[in-house]
């Protein structure tokens, strides 16, 4: 399955959340790859702790491949290359976890027919090898998003399932932006339809993911003084109403990741170790990532009977 991670704004938690989803799928035994299509600011290597390719690789990455300068993009085995102290010992029963880095000076580029053909070949190839192909697209209606919409509309890819995760933070501005990004006149849905996607099918393959969510009902926020607590509840309810009105409500949401202090300071994977041994990260965060990883292919979550 192809999974495209998109967002309207930068800093929505798109990369960190996606990397954690990929990690948890691989832990559960799936073969997973993560494509850093974030043309311009590739960060996945930091999250997976592969310092050698931090900020992208010099050449031969996804940008080179799509522009015809490399006939295969570079791939890195995360279990073998990571410097993360826990991940270096590949967990028993885990699936492959492969990172396809972007090029350091990749930047944006126009989507010509050649790069569409290369995109088709790439996604077909990865679909044949991996259970989950996670593609981190750059923020906004970038060329990367256009390429993904274009390629997935092509008849060559029929039978290859694609899903869209739209990441946003849990604020008024972010909710409004995410809704416009998905359903607005220049949004993904209309862009997809213009490229030949079926409107209902595409809408059905889109879900929202909230990151850094502050829940007034759970500690420490639930322990706030009554006035503050009441105020937070009112705001949160207002936000829920806004989200529902804009098509970003509960039924369109795949999952929600709490505000996690560890992630506030550091882009990283959240492991069992972080939660149960060193106890620096919250169990809810770990559970949120595991839930998201599970729901990715859970037909119920996608309204498939």
């Amino acid at each position, binding site marked *: 399955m192809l999974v495209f991670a998109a967002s309207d704004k930068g800093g929505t938690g798109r990369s960190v959340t996606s990397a954690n989803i990929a990690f948890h799928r691989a832990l559960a035994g799936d*073969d997973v790859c993560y494509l850093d299509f974030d043309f311009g600011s590739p960060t996945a290597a930091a999250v997976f702790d592969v310092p050698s390719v931090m900020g992208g690789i010099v050449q031969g990455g996804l940008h080179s491949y799509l522009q015809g300068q490399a006939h295969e993009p570079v791939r890195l085995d995360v279990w073998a290359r990571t410097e993360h102290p826990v991940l270096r010992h590949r967990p028993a*029963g885990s699936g492959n976890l492969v990172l396809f880095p972007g090029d350091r000076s990749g930047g944006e580029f126009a989507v010509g027919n050649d790069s569409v053909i290369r995109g088709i070949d790439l996604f*077909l190839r990865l679909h*044949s090898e991996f259970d989950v192909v996670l593609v981190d697209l750059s923020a906004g209606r970038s060329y990367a998003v256009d390429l993904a919409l274009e390629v997935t509309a092509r*008849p060559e890819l029929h*039978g290859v399932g694609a899903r869209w995760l739209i990441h946003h933070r849990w604020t008024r501005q972010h909710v409004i932006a995410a809704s416009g990004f998905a359903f607005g006149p220049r949004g993904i849905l209309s862009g997809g339809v213009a490229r030949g996607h079926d409107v209902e099918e595409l809408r059905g393959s889109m879900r929202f993911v909230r990151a850094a969510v502050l829940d007034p009902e759970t500690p420490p926020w639930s322990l706030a003084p009554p006035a503050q607590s009441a105020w937070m509840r009112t705001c949160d309810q207002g936000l829920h109403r806004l989200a529902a009105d804009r098509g970003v409500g509960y039924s369109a949401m795949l999952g929600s990741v709490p505000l996690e202090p560890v992630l506030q300071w550091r882009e990283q994977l959240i492991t069992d170790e972080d939660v149960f041994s060193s106890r620096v990260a919250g169990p809810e965060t770990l559970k949120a990532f595991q839930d998201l990883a599970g729901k990715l292919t859970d037909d119920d979550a996608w309204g498939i009977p």
Partner: protein
Amino acid sequence: MAGPANTGERTEQSPEPVLVFGEVHTCLLQHGQALTGRGAADLLRLRADERVRLSERPNLYVRSPDVPTGVDCHLPSASGAKVRAVGTVTARATLTEGRLLQAGAHCTVTADGPGRRRRWGHYLARPGVVEPFGTLPERDVADGCLGAGRRPGDLDLGAIADRTLTRVLRDRALDNQPPFKSQVTRLRWVALRAADGEGPSLERFTLAGDGLRMAELRLPAGIPAAAAAGLCHDLALHDWLLTTLVRMVERSRLGSTDGRDALTALRPAVDHLMHLWMPAARVDQPLRPLWEALEREPGFTRQWQILVQRIRDQLALQTAAHLQP
């Protein structure tokens, strides 16, 4: 292999061939069902002007017409020496039992050639042959062909094989619903001339990372390049089967998890892979001894049988557990 083109033979104007090299990529066809002979023939019709070859015994095997690609570039070389060569490369795709897709490219290199380019007609009359400018440093070029760090712009048979493979995989007749996930494996191979009086031999067969394998053969004069390519396709096919089955058994966590899970994970092996093992089925008689050598060390078929037996035992155990009240 049926009626190989006699590209290896010496002719008046063409110097003696001393090196054959190639690359073959192997993968599972991305389709829910195994293709019938007719479906496979449609898929592999890579040229309108030539027929697809089909044979049904000992297994269903379909081969595309040979597709020539004209080349004028440097050959890979381990020392970095620039060896320019001109001629054509032969690419083909095959489908075994409607399931296993292979795409390969190979060419024969002559011992020497003129220091300039001849008319194209000369090269076109010798499909699959390339001629170097001057004398071929064959050991250096053979090592370059097997080496991983190749210079951009050098003759890249892997790229030609890959293009052939992706072209087939892009076909809209395929539903992209393969019964299981698997990797593409790539076999790079070279065949140098055997010493006078020596028979054919397999000098090495090694596994590098990421599904890359390397083989080096020695062949006596008179063995056609197509026969060497046929052997290497057969090796690549069985190596893919073994690699894929090993990976499936690993992933199923056979012996450590709930047997029922393992069963689900291994089911595709039983349904789609086990009957494909047929070493040397399409290898020309003079090259069969090379397979026999591989059977002794590392023991391809022995490894395969051990895996198959483990899976069968597991199936039997599960069935027995199921029958218990």
